[in-house]
């Protein structure tokens, strides 16, 4: 396990193996987005209660899932960074925080745009919406701490601690619709019995969710690779990379 982490987390080796992943994930993302949008707009029928407005679900729910998934990626790299002092993990904290914050903002904005026609209001201070807003501020905190120190490794350590403590917010978001009464509808897909959604609507939703996931991973690889080069600028392998690619 430790050997594995040290090997794949060494800046030079990471830069090499991540290239192919980034390429393929980008191709897969484009294909999935095309298929998911086609299914979502042209195959899935209108909802019998919400009409065409429910089509926001195909981006709202994936963005909301990603806001939590990215947080877990960030927190786990925080643990790896604190325990094993892996440089690449330290970088991943900051890079995933930026992407996570944008997914969280998108979940909130698309939620508001869906809430207005369905609930009659853009915003209510209920548990689900408020805890998702707290998640956005946690991301901002991680980004700020990550860049607040002269030494980026100290910043990464501070950001990692905040990210780990903030995990407490994730189950609160997930179960907020069960624990407190709310306007927000409860889970339709991620629950123990069968999803209460027709297959023609479920397929585009799951495809879009997968597309958002591969998008995130491709972007995370791209951003991390750049930052690895910047941090390791004095290493001889970085000089070779720069000479080769220019």
């Amino acid at each position: 396990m430790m050997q594995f982490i040290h090997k794949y987390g060494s800046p030079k080796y990471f830069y090499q193996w991540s290239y192919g992943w980034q390429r393929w994930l980008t191709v897969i993302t484009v294909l999935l987005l095309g298929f998911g949008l086609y299914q979502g707009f042209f195959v899935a029928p209108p909802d019998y209660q919400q009409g065409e407005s429910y089509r926001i679900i195909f981006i709202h729910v994936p963005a909301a899932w990603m806001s939590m998934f990215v947080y877990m990626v960030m927190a786990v790299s925080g643990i790896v960074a604190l325990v094993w002092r892996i440089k690449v993990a330290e970088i991943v904290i900051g890079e995933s925080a930026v992407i996570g914050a944008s997914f969280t903002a998108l979940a909130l904005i698309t939620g508001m745009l869906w809430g207005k026609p369905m609930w009659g209001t853009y915003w209510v201070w209920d548990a689900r919406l408020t805890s998702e807003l707290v998640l956005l501020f946690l991301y901002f905190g991680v980004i700020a701490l990550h860049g607040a120190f002269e030494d980026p490794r100290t910043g990464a350590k501070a950001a990692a601690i905040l990210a780990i403590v903030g995990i407490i917010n994730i189950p609160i978001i997930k179960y907020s619709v069960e624990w407190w009464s709310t306007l927000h509808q409860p889970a339709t897909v991620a629950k123990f019995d069968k999803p209460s959604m027709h297959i023609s609507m479920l397929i585009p939703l799951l495809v879009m969710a997968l597309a958002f996931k591969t998008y995130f991973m491709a972007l995370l690889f791209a951003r991390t690779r750049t930052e690895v080069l910047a941090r390791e600028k004095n290493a001889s392998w970085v000089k070779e990379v720069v000479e080769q690619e220019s």
Partner: protein
Amino acid sequence: MKEFFDMGGYAFFVWWSYGIVTFVMVANVIVAKMKRKRIFKQLQELSEES
């Protein structure tokens, strides 16, 4: 066609949602590419100095 863009009267909400999501996801990619270019330029200058 008109029917499609009308989204059963919900055009404003549906298209703003998709528009903002598209904008943010594309902007994220462009920002990442610009940063990569900038870092590469700095690294090139660094290696020319030495």
